[in-house]
């Protein structure tokens, strides 16, 4: 076994592990992280012993390297397949850029950087030190230019295929170039003829990064599209609700006209006056929350609830919601109330048709709590976690974007047949001062 090449392989592994670890810093580590890390390292050692770096193995070196990157991310961190491929490919590309810059410098300063050659450079240790130095510079620049964005990237499921294809292309192209250079008889290590291959390869790496972030952008746009589609669906729902409200108002107006006419004719005026008051009370129950957006949403939903025998009780400290944008408030509360209404409407027992909504601030947090009975005979996805029964509601998944935008979190649970939802938002310091 060539010790020198083995050191290079290990160096490659470290060069790969560093960007991948930087990229994975936002991900949660799996249990027994250190053990898993050792497993990955052990695998690298086994590979080096089984397939020493010579001949075809040397040419196919990129395949195990990228596979180790994927394996490391998937095995050590809680991540999806899409994220693994995305971060693994970026990590590999960054490592490759660093190696290529090393190789290009080697062409110009073979005596110092000629650590790849059989004869070795005259300044062997200095050469390795410079590799590490270049790695640090490249990874630092990469971190500030690309990695920060990659860490924050939120990938949709539909990005899996383009991301995987890109990962495969990166591999194939690297093999293709390496093979091409050897077939062409070029000195793969230290020669000016290799320079063209290195520069080509470098450009390709930049292209890969550009495409990667393009896919991220498309993925983010997809998410925005999903929200827009949800808003359109909400508008449809809104239309149906408005139509229902209009019909109810017309019906009530008709009743009122009848009652007033009866009073005017002097037929049982007391009874008709009472009936007329009852009709008027339906519309005279303005909900005032202290937040104009909520007043509009709640009053409209309230009319709809009254018409469908649902007791709708909001207890709202509207001022506490001032840090949430109007559009987000609308999306959030419309979604929450619509979901509650659709559940309660399925209850055959009308006495159980009620919805409580609480919004209040407590310490440094804003809490939104919704409570209503659920018909458990319907298809709800129930899961148990920490002794609590969690209710999975697909229609609420679309709201997570708004909740996470304000650093919030949502929890749902079931107590007997009562569905309870809680959303918590940290209130910013500035808002607290404003309130004081």
């Amino acid at each position: 076994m060539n010790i020198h090449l083995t050191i290079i392989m290990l160096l490659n592994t470290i060069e790969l592990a560093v960007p991948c670890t930087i990229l994975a810093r936002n991900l949660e580590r799996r249990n027994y992280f250190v053990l898993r890390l050792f497993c990955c390292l052990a695998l690298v050692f086994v590979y080096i012993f089984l397939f020493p770096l010579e001949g075809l193995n040397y040419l196919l070196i990129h395949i195990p390297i990228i596979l180790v990157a994927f394996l490391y991310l998937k095995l050590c961190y809680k991540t999806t397949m899409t994220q693994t491929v995305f971060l693994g490919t970026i990590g590999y590309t960054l490592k490759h850029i660093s190696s290529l810059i090393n190789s290009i410098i080697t062409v110009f300063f073979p005596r110092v950087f000629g650590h790849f050659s059989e004869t070795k450079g005259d300044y062997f240790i200095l050469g390795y030190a410079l590799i590490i130095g270049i790695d640090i510079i490249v990874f630092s620049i990469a971190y500030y230019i690309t990695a920060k964005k990659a860490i924050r990237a939120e990938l949709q499921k539909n990005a899996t295929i383009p991301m995987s294809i890109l990962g495969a292309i990166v591999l194939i192209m690297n093999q293709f170039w390496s093979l091409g250079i050897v077939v062409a008889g070029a000195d793969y290590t230290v020669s000016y003829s290799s320079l063209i291959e290195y520069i080509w390869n470098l450009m390709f790496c930049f292209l890969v990064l550009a495409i990667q972030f393009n896919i991220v952008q498309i993925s983010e746009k997809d998410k925005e599209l999903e929200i827009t589609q949800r808003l359109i669906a909400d508008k449809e729902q809104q239309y149906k609700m408005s139509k229902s409200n209009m019909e109810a108002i017309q019906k009530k107006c008709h009743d009122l006209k009848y009652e007033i006419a009866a009073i005017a004719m002097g037929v049982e005026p007391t009874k008709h006056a009472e009936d007329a008051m009852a009709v008027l009370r339906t519309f005279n129950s303005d909900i005032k929350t202290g937040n104009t957006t909520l007043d509009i949403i709640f009053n409209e939903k309230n009319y709809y609830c009254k018409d469908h025998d649902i007791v709708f009780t909001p207890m709202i400290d509207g001022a506490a919601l001032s840090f949430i944008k109007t559009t987000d408030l609308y999306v959030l509360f419309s979604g929450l109330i619509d979901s509650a209404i659709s559940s309660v409407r399925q209850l055959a027992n009308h006495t159980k048709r009620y919805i409580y909504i609480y919004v209040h601030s407590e310490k440094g947090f804003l809490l939104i709590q919704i409570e209503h009975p659920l018909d458990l005979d319907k298809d709800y996805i129930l899961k148990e976690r920490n002794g609590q029964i969690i209710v999975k509601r697909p229609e609420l998944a679309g709201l997570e974007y708004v909740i996470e935008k304000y650093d919030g979190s949502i929890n749902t649970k079931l107590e007997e047949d009562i569905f309870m939802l809680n959303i918590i938002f940290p209130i910013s310091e500035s808002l607290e001062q404003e309130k004081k």
Partner: protein
Amino acid sequence: MRNIAIVDDDANIRQQLQSYLKKYTENFGEDFVVSEFSIPEAFLTNYKSNYDVVFMDIDMPGMNGLQAAKRLRELDEKVVLIFVTNLAQYAIKGYEVAATDFVVKPLEYTKFETKIARAIKLTDDRAKSPSLLLRVEDKMVSIKMEDIRYVEVQGHNVYYHTSKDTYRIRGTLKESAAELDSNEFFMCAKCYLVNLAYVESVKGNVVTVAGQDITVSRPKKKEFMEALAAYHNKR
């Protein structure tokens, strides 16, 4: 046997609540001793902390329900307080006096049943109030779990910061975590296990627990917020 107080100036509402409690007894076999008060002053004068649940009207002449609740909290922090109101919009202020729940007029038995069942569960939970036995130096110390604000590890020492004192024992944070309720406590950093009841604020990655700033690791932040949302969903 549960001690219940009903504070409402409306005799009809008091009677209705009595009949609902009676119905609950018939349905679930839970016995209640009910005391009625038409004015809060009568309830608060010579108040003894022997009530499990208090039903309090908000809109009352003289001292209103919120003022009465504030005074009640000075006398009794633990009692389960349920506001009975037709002023749903103003009832939310009840959270300022640690109201446990709200019943909105007109009263209906179905909703009432849910509320009283939850209140009973809460009184049971509070009565249990589990304790932890710690070997501090050469003596055994018993501390209530609800008094623990956060647990901190430094080297081989574990510090239990409670509302009264700080206790040091030998051990690891994992051992401490195993003894504490996972729904109440959360390990938000390698060295800290926090009682979610004492979390005062979250700013970025910094969590303030009983005045102590603790940095939550980025990957743990989401999990921490989920735990906090679940904790506050216990009402």
